[in-house]
């Protein structure tokens, strides 16, 4: 009985002088949605290609569903489904022809595994005679998912499935992934969207080819140590520069319509515990101070709030260390 669906050990890969992946190790448990989170160029696609046997790692070993990605690549390719970051179906074939083709390539039929893709395919059904190239971004993604699933893979690799897809379709897409997990398929998904990270069971934060942290999304946010505030005023650009000058170690960055301000944790940290009560008690008297500071800087319509850390805050924090 194997306990790991994906096992990556000390993987490294360089393209010439550029080290795309540096000594990366992680495990994915069976039936888990595991997210590789990181900005463009973090090495996500390279990792995917190593794990789907498309690239050979320079060093390190990896196995997927118990099969070595280098030695057993032929067997492996029967058991995995892969959806590359770029839309990689035949644009001049219709929805149905694409699906039929991939079913045949994997030696199966649409009917055989229809149960698995039914939820997704019913949405595509009205367009089944439309050419794939003429579909919307969300529909393309659903079709690509169907094609990657048609042979009932044991492990599904989705490289940035949310890119170029509208928020509603993205939400639906993730609901589908959660349903798939219940059909006992392990899913490795990569994304640059931090909001998608919170939908994974566990995530690895990836930056410049290195893993910064691996944990559940809750675990990652709970580890956030610094007092965090959301602030806004009429002049957001100046607000950010001003807040950065608030005190040594203060960090401020745009976050939606607010700016997030992270104060230095070490200087005023009361205990090693990260219980929210501790931090809120400490921050309650910080808010008036910040407001006062901003008023002296001449800001108008100032709003300063307590806020809890998201994955993105954690990511920025980890990146700076």
């Amino acid at each position, binding site marked *: 009985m194997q306990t790991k669906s994906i096992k990556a050990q000390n993987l490294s890969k360089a393209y010439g002088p550029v080290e795309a992946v540096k000594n990366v190790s992680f495990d994915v448990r069976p039936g888990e949605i595991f997210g590789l989170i990181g900005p463009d160029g973090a090495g996500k696609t390279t990792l995917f*290609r190593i794990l*789907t*046997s*498309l*690239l*050979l790692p320079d060093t390190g070993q990896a196995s997927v569903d118990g099969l070595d990605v280098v030695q057993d*690549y*032929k067997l492996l*390719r*029967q058991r*995995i489904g*892969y959806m*590359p970051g*770029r*839309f*990689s*179906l*035949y*644009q*001049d*074939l219709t929805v149905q*022809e694409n699906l*039929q*083709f*991939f079913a*045949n*390539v*994997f*030696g199966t039929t649409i009917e055989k595994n229809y149960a698995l893709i039914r939820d997704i395919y019913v949405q595509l059904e009205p367009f089944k005679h439309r050419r794939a190239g003429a579909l919307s971004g969300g529909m393309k993604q659903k079709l690509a998912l169907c*094609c990657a699933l048609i042979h009932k893979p044991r492990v599904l690799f989705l490289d940035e499935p949310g890119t170029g897809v509208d928020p509603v379709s993205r939400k639906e897409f993730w609901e589908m992934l959660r349903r798939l997990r219940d059909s006992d398929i392990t899913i490795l998904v990569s994304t640059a969207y931090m909001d998608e990270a919170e939908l994974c069971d566990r995530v690895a934060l990836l930056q410049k080819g290195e893993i910064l942290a691996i944990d559940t999304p809750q675990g990652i946010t709970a580890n956030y140590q610094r007092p965090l505030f959301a602030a806004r005023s009429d002049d957001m650009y100046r607000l950010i520069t001003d807040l950065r000058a608030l005190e040594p170690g203060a960090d401020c960055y745009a976050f939606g319509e607010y700016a997030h301000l992270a104060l230095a944790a070490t200087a005023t940290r009361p205990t090693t515990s990260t219980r929210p009560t501790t931090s809120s008690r400490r921050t309650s008297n910080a808010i008036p101070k910040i407001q006062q500071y901003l008023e002296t800087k001449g800001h108008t319509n100032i709003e300063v709030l307590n806020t809890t850390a998201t994955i993105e805050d954690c990511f920025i924090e980890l990146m700076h260390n």
Partner: protein
Amino acid sequence: MNRFFAFVLKEFRHIYRDRRTMLILFGMPVVQVLLFGFVLTNEVKDANIAVLDPSKDPASIRLTNKLVSSGYFRVAANLQSPEQLEPAFRNGSIKLALVFPPDFGHTLDHEGTAKIQLIGDASDPNTATTLINYANAIILNFQQEYAQSSLGAQQAPQPMILAESRMRYNPEEKAVFNFVPGVMTLILMLVSAMMTSITLAREKEMGTMEVLLVSPLKPLQIVLGKTAPYLALSFLNAVLVVLIGMLVFGMPMRGSFLLLGFECFLYMFVALSLGILISTRAQTQMAALFVSALSLMMPTIVLSGFIFPRESMPVFLQAVGTAFPATWFIPIVKGVMIKGVGLSYLWKETLVLVGMAVVFIGVSVRNFKSRLE
């Protein structure tokens, strides 16, 4: 096997949905054959000539009539003085001028020799040479007739060697006999090699190759699945070209269709494997197109003997030419269609093509990566 057929079916769909591919596949061969057929010809018919004949005696008139009745020449102008020659050549109305001396017949009858002048327009040297040769042959012929005829009867016939040449297989020296095999060779190379390399490069460019690789398809299945439809369509093309050659240009078919079919198939297979070889290197459709055009089309046209005779090339270029399948395929097509010979005469060329097929497909499949990079 189901996998393979699914692949072939998909490929056919790509082809018939892409108007440009269809155009290249079927429009180009027809246009090329017709174009080459009507344009690329060094045959002479009804060439305009000028005659300057101050003697106007029975002998000169007879010679002029003989030239015209050959069908190669047509008298466009009867000139009165040598000064008129230059303007006639300049405005391009004549290709050749025939100049008689005064009292041509008299001199011929009494002295046994007479001179005439043939002036060609060598701004087009090939045509000029051809015309002069034709005219010379006719004049020689006239001379023999004249010697035997009553006009020159009193003169004892001089000993003469008559070289009677016959052009076998193509007595009328029709250019079609040369260009139909050539165009066929070119088109099959173009369609098979270029289209295959482009279609494989397209999968890379569109990112679909990545998905195909991460599937249980074997490299050989991918390669064969992609090329099989083109093999079938190329074969259709070969049939089309042969039919146009026979029906429109009167090309003979003296040998066996079966043998020709087999040889075409073999040649296309070589071309396809070259296409695959190119695509293992080229990452984009554009690159594939350029490489196949430069490395395959040019040598096929220039070095294979299609347009320029191989015998007159420098030895080095002849040697380079042997590396290209077209060089071996052209003699095969000519042999089967024009001479009607069988495999016993063409085994050497056939064997070379078989060897090339084995080597190229072997190298292609070896070079075909089952991974990226």
